[in-house]
């Protein structure tokens, strides 16, 4: 009998990029739900605008690059980018800015470098950074929590904290403001809780491994606790930082983007810790309210170096 030839192995686990991305989208549902509940339909509007823009840009870029559109459009990675960006934006942001940010993320953040798997920077964070630098006013006016369907814009807890500290209020005074909840930001607590839930799901499904999220959370919590311990009047504590801003979304969904993250386990610990530390530094001393996006982009820059110095020892080789 005659048989065809093939190369081993002849079995695979059947994981696919598409399945990974769909799981990530699924895990984002709690965050989207909480945001919808807190900020009203603006959240849905942003998600829709971002998704449509992202798919259109992806299709266009694939066409221009002469790539088969089908396989890549269906991989779902561009939808993850769109969702992460949309969920990071203030719900009152005009739709055209959301579209602009998404286009920047997909076209410049991803396809300018060669598309899926090639981008050195997290595309969603590229889009976010461009928006926050270009349209600071629109980007910092979050809907006041609880304002519901007719959104009022107000400052976020991290904003209020920064401004309060600048005006020499103590943390204790500042935290009596309406922006604050029991632990962190009034709204942020819920968003972070939802992101944590989604993140734990990803961990359980092994879509995400623990190194980056855990390292990043420690990277924020340790310096925050230390600074708070030294000067409780001038620095918010670890719990506040963990429950505010984009901490959990960043730790489980943004920093864990495998393409722009470091690769080996050890490298990922360094990478995650770096993002955490930079986030805390930017929040505490920088002039932007939240530091996750910039921290991620800065650590993206260092990934090649981290990867190079953390190459694991190969079996049978001495430690060099």
């Amino acid at each position, binding site marked *: *009998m*005659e*048989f*065809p*030839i*093939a*190369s*081993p*192995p*002849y*079995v*695979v*686990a*059947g*994981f*696919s*990029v598409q*399945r*990974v991305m769909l799981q990530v989208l699924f895990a984002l549902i709690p965050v989207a739900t909480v945001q919808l509940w807190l900020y009203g339909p603006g959240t849905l509007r942003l998600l829709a605008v971002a998704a449509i823009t992202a798919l259109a840009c992806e299709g266009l870029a694939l066409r221009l690059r002469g790539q088969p559109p089908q*396989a*890549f459009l269906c*991989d779902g*990675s561009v939808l993850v980018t769109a969702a992460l960006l949309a969920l990071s934006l203030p719900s009152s942001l005009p739709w055209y800015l959301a579209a602009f940010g998404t286009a920047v993320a997909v076209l410049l953040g991803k396809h300018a470098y060669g*598309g*899926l*798997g*090639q981008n050195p920077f997290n595309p969603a964070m590229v889009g976010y950074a461009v928006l926050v630098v270009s349209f600071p006013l629109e980007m910092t006016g979050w809907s006041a929590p609880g304002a519901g369907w007719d959104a009022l814009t107000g400052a976020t807890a991290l904003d209020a904290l920064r401004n309060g500290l600048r005006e020499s209020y103590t943390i204790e005074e500042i935290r009596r403001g309406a922006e604050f909840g029991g632990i962190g930001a009034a709204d942020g607590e819920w968003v972070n809780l939802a992101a944590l839930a989604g993140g734990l799901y990803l961990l359980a499904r092994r879509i995400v*491994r623990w190194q980056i999220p855990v390292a990043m959370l420690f990277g924020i919590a340790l310096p925050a606790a230390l600074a708070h311990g030294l000067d409780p009047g001038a620095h918010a504590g670890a719990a506040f930082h963990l429950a505010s801003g984009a901490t959990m979304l960043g730790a489980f969904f943004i920093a864990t983007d*495998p*393409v722009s*993250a470091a*690769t*080996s*386990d050890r490298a*990922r610990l360094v990478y995650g810790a770096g993002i955490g530390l930079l986030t805390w530094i930017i929040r505490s001393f920088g002039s932007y309210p939240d530091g996750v996006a910039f921290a991620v982009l800065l650590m993206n820059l260092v990934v090649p170096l981290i*990867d190079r110095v953390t*190459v*694991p*020892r*190969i*079996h*049978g*080789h*001495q430690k060099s």
Partner: protein
Amino acid sequence: MSARPVMRGGLRLDGHKSRPLEHPLIRAAPPRVALLALDQGSGEDAEPLVAAGTAVRVGTRVAAGRVSSVDLHSPVSGVVRELALLPTPQGMGRCLVIDGDGRDEPDPALAPLDWQALDSADLIERLATGGIAGLGGAAFPAAAKLGLGREAGVDRLLLNGAECEPWICCDDALMRERAAQVVTGAKVMLAACGAERGTIAVEDDKPQAITALAAAIASCGDDRIEVIALPSVFPLGAEGPLIAAVTGREVPHDGLPPQVGVVCQNVGTAAAVARLVSDGMPCVSRIVTVTGSGVRRPANVEARIGTPIAELVAACDGYADDPSPRYLIAGGSLTGRALATDTAGLTKGLNCVLVATEGDLQPRGVEMPCIRCGDCATVCPAGLLPQQLHRAARSDDADGLVRLGLADCIECGCCDYVCPSAIPLTSRFRVARERRRRHEEERRRAAEARVRHERHQQRLAAESERERQAFEDARRRARGGTAPSEPRPDASRGPDTD
């Protein structure tokens, strides 16, 4: 007998081993025509010693081993027909074709070996004449390994009964049914290599094999030999990971197991040694798993080396009609080789014939770009970063390939298995390795060619100098001048300076 924590990476896979083990192993009839590949799986041909027409019996030596090949013995009694280029489990290779006469008479010169009376060097020499190759798959001469171990003064003999790859269960069958043979082989090998301790390592998905071995050890009363259970993880049965798991020692990347005091042999090899000493019969048969949904009755088959694969399948009631076979794989589903035909003869290195249907395998999907998820690094037993290695291979970055350990890849296929982007990583590494090898070869040849060219130029120059001399001398003689033997002051100058 406890499970130990063990290996970096690896996969826990569905073993697919139960069906051939439902019944005892079966014996295939000696083949009418034996196709004895000179390369039994180690990558080197043995030197044929017989010509067409030579009469042989079972066990008659027909080819001599070289460095990594073993002696070959006729698996049938009959007449050598020819030396031909034929399909083998490795692809194509030179094979001795021996027509059997159906009488199956053993060579009268064969005699049992009083191994206890021999010193280790003589014992190893005698074992070398038995043509015993590593039956785990590598087919490297067992005696040579024992010899290296003896020279290095190893303290441990490790018998590999892990059998970690899905579908393959010939060692399991052997250990269940012939545990005493394995233990006897272990004793002989201990004597040969001088180790103080023999450890038979078996994965814990083979409780019956472990029980049988423990009983055999107890009944022979040799307390130097032990059996240990290892977790069932692929590829724990690979030599490097196994040695590390059992002894905690790592074989250096540029070294061999004896350097860390270990000789590692397959349990099947030990049984072959036992047969050699007990009745003098060299390695002319082995147990091979014939399995997959594409055969009617999957079984472990004891068959003569050189038995065509089609006959092995026939011994298992033939190919199934529905579902029909899709691939014929020599080996398991992760590292086996897909064969184009079923005509190849059984070799010492062939442990499994997997007749796979569509449903037995999970083909990979459309290849996508690497998303650097790092799952490949998590499962790599060698501690490599396959995704970075892949990038280096794509750009043919020689330094990167060396630094990232291309040479340390054991081609187990774990990275392929988990890759969500369906990248054929192992094939790429194999190709990259081959390309590096060829590149080195070319460089070496180029260097040789340059030397040859330079020497050629020197010879040409010397020749033209001689001709010039001869011409000068002739001219001088014609003029009736000085004697030709007398050196002239301008002899070293070029011809046109005259």
